[in-house]
C-alpha cells in the first residue's frame, strides 16, 4: 500500500504583489503582501517609483526659482506647498506680508484644503465601490479649479504665493464667484453624506478597519486628520498659528475611534470648517497692496521699471541671479490637508539654499501601514490606504 507524505497544510503563505501600476493604490505605490488565504500576514510598502530628486535640485536654483518646483510635490493641493516654503523663506529673511495678502492667502489655502479633501473622498469612495461619488466630487473640483483659473490662468499649479505677498491681485468679481460656490457647498456635502453614511456596504467596508491607537499615532509620526481621528488634538493652525490664522474662529474636529470611518468623519467636518473660514475671510478682506517692499530681498514693483534704469537692472538681476539670503536655519511647518508639511532650509549666505529638507506628512502616515494591516482581509487594505490619504508625489519627492 502506498503511503503519501502529508503536506503541512496548516500554514501556507502566498506573496502577492500590488504593483506600481494599480488602479487602487493612489499613484505608484507598490505593496508586497503576504497572504494566508485572504488574511494579510505582512504588508511592506515599497516606494520610490516617483522619486524626483527635488531636494538635490533645489540646491541648484535660487529661492525664487524653487517655488515652481514645490507645487509639484503634493499635486492635489498646490497652494499649501507654496505657503509652507514661502513661510520658511519669509522667516529666514525676516519679512512679512501686507494684511490684504494674508487674507487672500488664507482663502487660497482653505480652497486647496477643500479641493484636497474632495479628491480624497472621490478616490477613497471609488475604491470601496461608490463610483457616483467620484464623478460628483470631480464636478465640485471643476468649480474650484475655475476659481483658480480666473485668478492665475492655471488650473492646478498656480504658484501664486511668493515671498512678500502674492504675485498679483484678485480680479473683480472673484469674491462673488467664491460666495456662489460656497452657497451651494453644504447641499453637496449633504448629498455625499446621504450617499455614503446610510449605505450599509460602505459602512461595513470602513467601520472598525485599520484601527490606530493614540500612542501608535504619535510614535509613528502621524499628523493631520489621520492622527486627529485617533485622539491626537494637534493642529498647527491653532497650536502654532501662522499667516494670520489666529484671527479666525474655527473648530478642529477630534475623534477617538481611530478607525477608517473616524478618519472619514474628521475630513468631512474639516471641509465644512474650511468653508466657514473662507466666509469669515471674505468679510474681513481689507484694501491695500498685495506685495510688500524691501530694498534687497523683494523684487521692485513692476510699474517703476518704466521709470528709471536702475530699477530695471535690479529687476533683471533679482530674477536671474537672485538675492543673497542671510545665513541660518529655519524649519517652518504648515497644516495641509494631509498633515504637517515642513520645510527645513539651511542657508549659507548665498543666492541658493544650501540644503532643503522637505518633511512630508504622507511619508510618516504611510510608514504605519506594516503595523496596522496584518489581520485584515485583502479587500480591506484598499480601504485602509484610501483612509490614510497619501500622495506619492510627497512621499517620494
Amino acid at each position, binding site marked *: 500500500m502506498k503511503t503519501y507524505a502529508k503536506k503541512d497544510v496548516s500554514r501556507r503563505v502566498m506573496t502577492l504583489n500590488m504593483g506600481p501600476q494599480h*488602479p487602487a493604490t493612489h499613484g505608484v505605490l507598490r505593496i508586497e503582501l503576504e497572504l494566508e488565504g485572504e488574511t494579510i500576514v505582512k504588508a511592506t510598502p515599497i516606494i520610490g517609483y516617483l522619486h524626483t530628486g527635488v531636494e538635490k535640485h533645489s540646491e541648484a536654483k535660487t529661492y525664487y526659482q524653487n517655488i515652481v518646483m514645490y507645487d509639484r510635490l503634493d499635486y492635489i493641493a498646490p497652494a499649501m506647498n507654496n505657503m509652507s516654503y514661502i513661510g520658511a523663506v519669509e522667516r529666514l529673511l525676516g519679512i512679512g506680508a501686507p494684511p490684504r495678502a494674508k487674507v487672500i492667502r488664507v482663502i487660497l489655502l482653505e480652497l486647496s484644503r477643500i479641493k484636497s479633501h474632495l479628491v480624497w473622498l472621490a478616490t477613497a469612495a471609488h475604491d470601496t465601490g461608490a463610483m457616483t461619488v467620484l464623478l460628483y466630487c470631480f464636478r465640485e473640483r471643476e468649480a474650484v479649479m475655475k476659481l483658480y483659473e480666473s485668478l492665475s490662468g492655471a488650473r492646478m499649479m498656480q504658484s501664486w504665493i511668493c515671498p512678500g505677498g502674492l504675485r498679483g491681485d484678485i480680479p473683480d468679481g472673484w469674491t462673488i464667484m467664491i460666495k456662489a460656490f460656497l452657497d451651494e457647498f453644504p447641499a453637496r456635502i449633504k448629498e455625499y453624506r446621504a450617499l455614503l453614511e446610510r449605505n450599509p456596504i460602505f459602512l461595513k467596508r470602513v467601520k472598525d478597519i485599520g484601527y490606530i491607537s493614540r500612542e501608535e499615532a504619535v510614535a509613528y509620526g502621524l499628523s493631520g486628520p489621520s492622527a486627529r481621528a485617533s485622539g491626537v488634538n494637534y493642529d498647527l493652525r491653532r497650536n502654532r498659528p501662522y499667516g494670520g490664522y489666529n484671527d479666525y474662529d474655527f473648530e478642529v474636529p477630534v475623534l477617538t475611534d481611530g478607525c477608517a470611518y473616524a478618519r472619514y468623519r474628521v475630513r468631512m467636518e474639516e471641509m465644512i470648517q474650511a468653508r466657514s473660514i473662507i466666509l469669515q475671510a471674505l468679510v474681513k478682506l481689507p484694501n491695500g497692496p498685495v506685495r510688500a517692499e524691501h530694498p534687497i530681498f523683494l523684487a521692485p514693483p513692476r510699474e517703476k521699471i518704466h521709470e528709471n534704469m536702475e530699477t530695471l537692472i535690479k529687476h533683471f538681476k533679482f530674477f536671474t541671479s537672485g538675492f543673497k539670503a542671510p545665513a541660518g536655519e529655519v524649519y517652518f511647518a504648515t497644516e495641509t490637508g494631509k498633515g504637517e508639511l515642513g520645510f527645513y532650509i539651511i542657508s549659507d549666505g548665498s543666492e541658493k539654499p544650501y540644503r532643503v529638507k522637505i518633511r512630508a506628512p504622507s511619508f510618516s502616515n504611510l510608514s504605519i501601514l506594516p503595523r496596522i494591516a496584518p489581520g485584515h482581509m485583502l479587500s480591506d487594505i484598499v480601504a485602509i490606504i484610501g483612509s490614510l490619504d497619501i500622495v506619492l508625489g510627497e512621499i517620494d519627492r
Partner: protein
Amino acid sequence: MRKAPRKPHEYLKTVGGIPSVPGVSTTKLDETINWLRKFSIWPVSMGLACCAFEMMSAGASRFDIARFGSEVFRASPRQADLMIVAGRVSWKMMPVVRQIYDQMAEPKWVIAMGACASCGGVFNNYAIAPGVDRILPVDIYVPGCPPRPEALLQSLLLIQEKLHKSKVEYF
C-alpha cells in the same frame, strides 16, 4: 482645414464609382477596420503624477472622454490599445512602464502627456528620465504642465486621424 465627417450613405459608395445595391455595401477592408478601431480606443491607466489628475478630469463628467470612444480606462494592459503616460517617469519606474507596454497587444499607440513625459519637464536631475521616448515609441507629445483636458482630447483625436490613415498590417 478639416473635412466634414462622412455621412452614412457615403460609406456605401465604392472606389470605382459603381453604385451599390441597398443592403449590400462594398468598401475597402482597411477603411472598415480602421473605422471600427478608431472609435473604441481604450487607454490603459498609466497615471503617475500631477498629469494623472488632468487625465482623470478628462474622464470625468465635464470633459467627457467617453464621447470619443474611450469608454473605460482598463487596468490590465492586455485589454487596452493606448497608453497615456501621464506624469514624470523616474528611472526606477522605467522598467515597469516598459513591461506594461510590452504586455499590450498590437496595434498599440502611446501618448506622452505633459512636459515631464515628453522631455523631462521642469526637472533636470539624476532621478527623472529626460522623456519617456527613451524606451517607448511615442506617437503624440502633449505639451503643458499639466496640459488642459481639452489638449488631451485633441491628442486623442489626432491618434484617431493617424489610425484612419494607417494600413492594417496585423490581421
